[in-house]
């Protein structure tokens, strides 16, 4: 209880948390984050209203800008879905960034291995390779965790740096395209590996793969035995042991699937956007994905919505960066503020505030 003179404020535990909160809280978090972000904009000497207007119109204003927001949302959605399933098992994996990079690397390799095959063979193969590449990368910290007790938050994050530098090594080293002059990237991928797009846009096949995975994950988590086991492990590991659930095996499965899905995001960037492996495949999609997953309250079906919102924020961020010459770090700061307020406001799922005047 907090008291100021005769004014009292008390946090009272709720019974069941009302349904509407799942929508209200993320919405309020975004609004408050934008308000807080306007302080940063003012410090930069930019009128927040005009900046947000520019952000909004370059994110959602025209059919083209909408389609570009979807392009940004695609890797976010996949990386968030991959992160989500590991979070469901209580495995605090922040390695989606690295898994994405390894997925991109494996997809690029697959295009070399299957060069000469038609798209009908090539595309499933690069998907499989990127899934296995990301998945294997995701499983390594799980083994460390279960066998040695290493904290997965640290190991998954350290694995990100290794993956990023592995990509750098390949594009400067063995896979460097000499015809690209100073631009460190792999040679252009064979045409057969290019993902189909919606004509007139850069929206590629991966977005539909992501939507399908969102639905599949929902069914998997809620309707299958394995899904139930995973949720039990995540909510109460002691109870999982008590119920005879094999925690080690399940965490390996979850990190394989989660890493694999994040790996597909990397595949999408390589085969759907760049058509080669560039030095920087991702501007940090794997990190933003954590925010996307929390904004969706770890529900796979709402991930596409929150990914689209953040895709818009990224896309619009490029817009204000160009229009007002503000650093992109400012856009990242606003994203971080969204996460901050979602976490801070989460207390209202469990508590409500009562105000009172005492005479």
């Amino acid at each position: 209880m907090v008291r100021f003179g005769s004014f009292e404020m008390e946090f009272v535990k709720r019974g069941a948390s009302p349904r509407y909160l799942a929508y209200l809280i993320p919405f309020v978090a975004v609004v408050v984050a934008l308000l807080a972000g306007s302080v940063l904009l003012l410090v930069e000497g930019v009128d927040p209203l005009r900046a947000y207007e520019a952000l909004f119109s370059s994110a959602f204003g025209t059919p083209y800008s909408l389609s570009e927001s979807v392009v940004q949302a695609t890797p976010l959605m996949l990386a968030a879905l991959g992160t989500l399933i590991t979070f469901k098992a209580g495995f605090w994996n922040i390695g989606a960034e690295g898994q994405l990079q390894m997925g991109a690397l494996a997809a690029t390799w697959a295009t070399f291995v299957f060069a000469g095959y038609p798209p009908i063979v090539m595309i499933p193969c690069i998907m499989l390779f990127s899934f296995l590449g990301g998945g294997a990368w995701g499983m390594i910290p799980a083994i460390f965790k279960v066998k040695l007790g290493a904290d997965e938050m640290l190991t998954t994050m350290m694995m990100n740096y290794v993956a990023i530098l592995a990509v750098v090594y390949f594009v400067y080293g063995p896979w460097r395209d000499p015809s690209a002059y100073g631009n460190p990237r792999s040679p252009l991928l064979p045409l057969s590996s290019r993902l189909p797009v919606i004509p007139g846009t850069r929206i590629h096949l991966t977005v539909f793969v992501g939507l399908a995975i969102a639905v599949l994950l929902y069914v998997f988590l809620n309707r299958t035995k394995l899904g139930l086991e995973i949720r039990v492990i995540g909510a109460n590991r002691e109870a999982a042991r008590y119920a005879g659930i094999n925690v080690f095996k399940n965490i390996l499965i979850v990190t394989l699937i989660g890493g694999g899905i994040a790996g597909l995001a990397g595949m999408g960037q390589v085969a759907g956007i760049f058509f080669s492996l560039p030095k920087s495949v991702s501007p940090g999609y794997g990190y933003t994905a954590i925010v996307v997953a929390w904004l969706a309250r770890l529900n796979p079906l709402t991930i596409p919505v929150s990914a689209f919102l953040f895709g818009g924020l990224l896309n619009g961020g490029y817009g204000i960066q160009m229009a007002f010459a503000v650093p992109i770090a400012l856009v990242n700061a606003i994203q971080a503020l969204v996460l901050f307020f979602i976490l801070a406001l989460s207390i209202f799922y469990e508590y409500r505030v009562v105000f009172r005047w005492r005479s």
Partner: protein
Amino acid sequence: MIASQQAATSSFAVQMKGITKSFPGVFANDHVDFDVKHGEIHALLGENGAGKTTLMNILYGLYQPDEGEIYIDGEKVTINSPKDAIKLGIGMVHQLFRLIPSFTVTENIVLGLHSSKRPRLDLDVAEKKINELSKKYGLKVDPSAKVWQISVGEQQRVEIIKALYRGAKVLILDEPTSVLTPQEVKELTMILTKMAKDGLAVIPFVTHKLREVMAITDRVTVMRRGKVIATLETRNTNERDLASKMVGRTVFLETEKVEVTSHRPVLEVNDLRAINDKGLPALDGVSFSIAEGEVLGIAGVAGNGQTELAEVITGLRKATGGRILINGKDITNMPTRQIMEAGIGHAPEKRTEMGLVGDLSVRENLILTNYNDRSLATRYVLDRASIDRHVDKLIAEFGIMTPGKEAPVKLLSGGNLQRLILAREVTRKNLSVLVVVDPTRGLDIGATEFIRNSLVSLKKKGVAILLISGDLDEIFSLSDRIAVIFKGSIMGILAANEAKIDEIGLMMAGAGAQKQEVA
């Protein structure tokens, strides 16, 4: 006339008048009147959720009443915090002791108080005062012992001294006998009686230890659903009367006795050994067997290997030696899943930490240990329709009060949680052994009665039950045989109808071991 009235009023240590406190959706206290005189032991009796804890938390300043007045020694007071309460001479001994294990008894007692030799502690003066209090009321403690070295009963005495040291004239005790051995209960009774004789007002609150209420108290106030049902002179009432007032209907405190007819052992444990989490021996060669339809009670002071015994049998802890057989099949150190499939059910001591998943729904918790069953799922996919039927049936059969089967179980009350666990474990396919630990701890009379009857009907079906419980009444009322565990060894196994409670109590304190050493 006026003078005598004043004298009458001032003999009350505490008067609470018309206390009302509501929480969202419930009246925790609905115009409650309660008083206690100097030199009186006045118990507050009621089931969980009856409102006794709320009432005492108001007296101790943890909650503010919405309405009502509190008088201490006849004077109206406002108690805003425990600090105010302590200043007014009110002391509270919590059910779970709030002591720091690595500190000495003296350090724990003076913790948070001003020292006359600030910034240094005046431990010598404190120790002298502690010894005085200790001698005065027979509160045996060793002021220089570290708290982790002393028994639970001694820790409770430290808590009582801590309250007296702060000048308590009114002592509130939350479930004071729930953790004690029979001998310790006797000692506590003597201590409280001495304190009352010395003019202190004592308020123990109790959920189901009616026998002790009858033995210790002068008056009893029974609460139910936030209201005072009756305030009675103890000598004018009896256990049965108190129980029915508490529950609101006639209750049967005696559980039905069912003879064991079979001699076929279902669970056999031979020379079982295991270590605890600290790596020290917890089970030191435990052997027993349980026949079809037999209940073996394991009595003992908490921490003598009971937890480890349940864990080793259910596969949650590795045995370092010995064997466990179910229906003749060796299951020692098999994975938990296989042990479950061999026919062991487990209602664990840690209900919410282990037996349930708080954030998951009632439906999911009811299938937590049997979702693999062919009738509830195919090889990979859960069969929602048959799960729903199964869950609806269990909710109805076991009277689980829940807002719905989709509600997360963390919203359910303690009694309903235990009903849920038992419903799940008891109805498992091919159940032949149930390991159940403290099945009714913290539950009210209604739930206790239900749970015990469920165990009896399970026994009738021929299931062997290993009942590990800190509640000796429970052990006596349900068991066919009683084994006493002390420091990881079985001191002896007695037939329940021949065992004496004193004998068991002495064995719990390790007396059997001394006898064996002599012999």
